[in-house]
């Protein structure tokens, strides 16, 4: 039992990281209706900013995160303006997906030139060691706890923002019908920019936590977590913010338990199989709304 709990807790640690990334992902995904394949790379850029300000300039971790969040926000807004906005109203939504891939390549290769391929070991932004239970047998790391708390705060903040504020409702309207939203007096461009700003700012926070938990930073650090977050977001139900959180945690737990009890070699395959099964049972993810088209 204790054994199981250990793996379960490991799964939660991993899952909490997926969750915090998935929250930012789902934000952009749900509102701007685009698969932002560059999200993982924004996380990577955020991590490099934190690394630079913490290690190279010796700044305080919190201040570094603020700087990174600001940097990523700007990055998010700029990429949106330059690469995504011109494609608004394009004949296919796949067009913007492809430029997002272009942006992803761009960020990776930019980082490769600036920071080189040499890996950097990240200094954790969380200095707390965590707690030990069951006489030290079960250890929950500080990063994990902070990550879960942060993602819960982000979750609540996002939910409140979207449900309760005008800006948030504007986002929902824009995601449904941009033209009709404009007719309500909503500034569509500003709203989408804001979405990217928030999503990218969250990416910086996710980057800080990701790299604190797994302190190895290279230009490709963001790619795989980006995809896993996408999977988590879909598992939880596209556009559903609590879904992203649950999807992320579940993904981590499934990954951890299947590594332990089935196979380390095939764990990716198992995770993906479970995803498929879940989607077969619930075709719109765990918390996804079932939108039936009225005929």
């Amino acid at each position, binding site marked *: 039992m204790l054994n199981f709990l250990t793996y379960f807790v490991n799964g939660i640690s991993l899952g909490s990281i997926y969750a915090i990334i998935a929250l930012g992902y789902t934000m952009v995904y749900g509102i701007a209706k685009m*698969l932002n*394949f560059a999200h993982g790379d924004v996380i990577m850029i955020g991590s490099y900013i934190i690394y630079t300000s913490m290690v190279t300039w010796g700044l305080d971790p919190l201040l570094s995160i603020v700087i990174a969040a600001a940097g990523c926000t700007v990055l998010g807004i700029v990429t949106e303006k330059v*690469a995504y906005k*011109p*494609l*608004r*109203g*394009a*004949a*296919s939504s*796949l*067009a913007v*997906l*492809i*430029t997002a*891939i*272009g*942006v992803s*390549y*761009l960020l*990776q*290769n*930019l980082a*490769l*030139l600036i920071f080189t391929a040499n890996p950097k070991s990240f200094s954790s932004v969380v200095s707390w060691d965590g707690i030990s239970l069951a006489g030290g047998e079960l250890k929950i790391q500080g990063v994990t706890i902070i990550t879960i708390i942060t993602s819960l705060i982000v979750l609540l903040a996002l939910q409140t923002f979207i449900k309760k504020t005008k800006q948030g409702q504007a986002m929902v309207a824009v995601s449904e019908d941009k033209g009709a939203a404009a007719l309500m007096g909503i500034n569509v461009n500003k709203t989408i920019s804001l979405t990217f700003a928030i999503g990218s700012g969250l990416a910086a926070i996710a980057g800080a936590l990701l790299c604190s938990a797994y302190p190895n930073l290279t230009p490709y650090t963001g790619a795989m977590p980006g*995809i896993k977050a*996408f*999977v988590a977001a*879909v598992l939880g139900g*596209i556009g559903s913010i609590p879904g992203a959180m649950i999807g992320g945690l579940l993904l981590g737990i499934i990954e951890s338990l299947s590594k332990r009890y089935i*196979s380390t*070699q*095939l764990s*990716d*395959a198992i995770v*993906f*199989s479970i*995803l*498929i099964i879940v*989607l*077969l049972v619930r*075709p*719109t*993810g765990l918390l996804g709304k079932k939108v039936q*088209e009225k*005929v």
Partner: protein
Amino acid sequence: MKFTKQTKRDLYTCVMVILFYVVIQVLDKAGVLSFHIKGLLVPLCYYSIAAVALNLVVGILGDLSLGHAGFMCVGAFSASLFSVAVKESGMPAGLRFLTALIIGTLMAALFGFLIGIPVLRLNGDYLAIVTLAFGEIIKNFLAAVYLGYDEEGLHVAFKSFQLKGEGKMLINGAMGIQGTPTDSTFTISIVILLLALFAIQNLVNSRAGRAIMAIRDNRIAAEAVGINITKYKMLAFTVSAAIAGTAGVLFSHNTSTLTASSTYFGYNVSILILVYVVLGGIGNIRGSIIATAILYILPELLRGLNSYRMLIYSIVLIVIMLINWAPAAIAFRERYGIRAFIGRKRENSGKEVS
């Protein structure tokens, strides 16, 4: 016989490919082709084939698949397995390769069919993620499996094992399949590209193709006029997977080593093929080929830029996408009568009404 506009357009596509082949052959005979260019020809063909296949799903059926590299993987592995197994049996190379092609294609078709079953129940991005997942599972599985035979028969496991006596390792885990004969030639690849074009274009312009496009345009209406959604989605998916599998066979018989790594068969490769399709025009078969040619050759042309190579490539990719797809750019082009860079629009038998 009178050709319809569409038939003519399809024929032009084939003529374009044949012309390309002839020009290359002439240049080759004249000795002006560099090794670099010659080496690019076969990959160009199989990526074109894969792009054309994916276009059937993305452009014609209107579903987003992020797992076509998985079908290439199935085709590549099953065919290579066969080729390696019979390599020393004295089977004539031509017959061996033909059989390998058929095996790879059929295996990929089978997987396409199996994957098609869940695909039918899902829509949009959920579908995309399931195809991505399938691609990853296939890759993950093949990278973990060991297959070999010895005097005691066939062995399969997820851990390496020792073979007794005169045995041979066929699939060696992450090391994959070694020693596939390099049977893929430019001529064969072009022939297969033409066959793929023939099959897909004819399919699209037949009763079945119209049914598939009807599902894309309005699923509910398609059902209401009596189109069996399941059947035609399956058909499109299976045919597409089969052709992607053929591309995989050409892939694995082009270099002697075959490993199921992300580099060749990961989701990023599926996405790369999707990039070709979207850039060339969703539903535009000819565009897929042209876009593949441009995007595959571009990073190779940029080799002189060294470290800046992939950076420039990514910028060029974004810029081409904007030029080709941004409404403002399209309006500009239409106003000044410039033709699309590659051909964004679905080129169908339709003219605009004023």
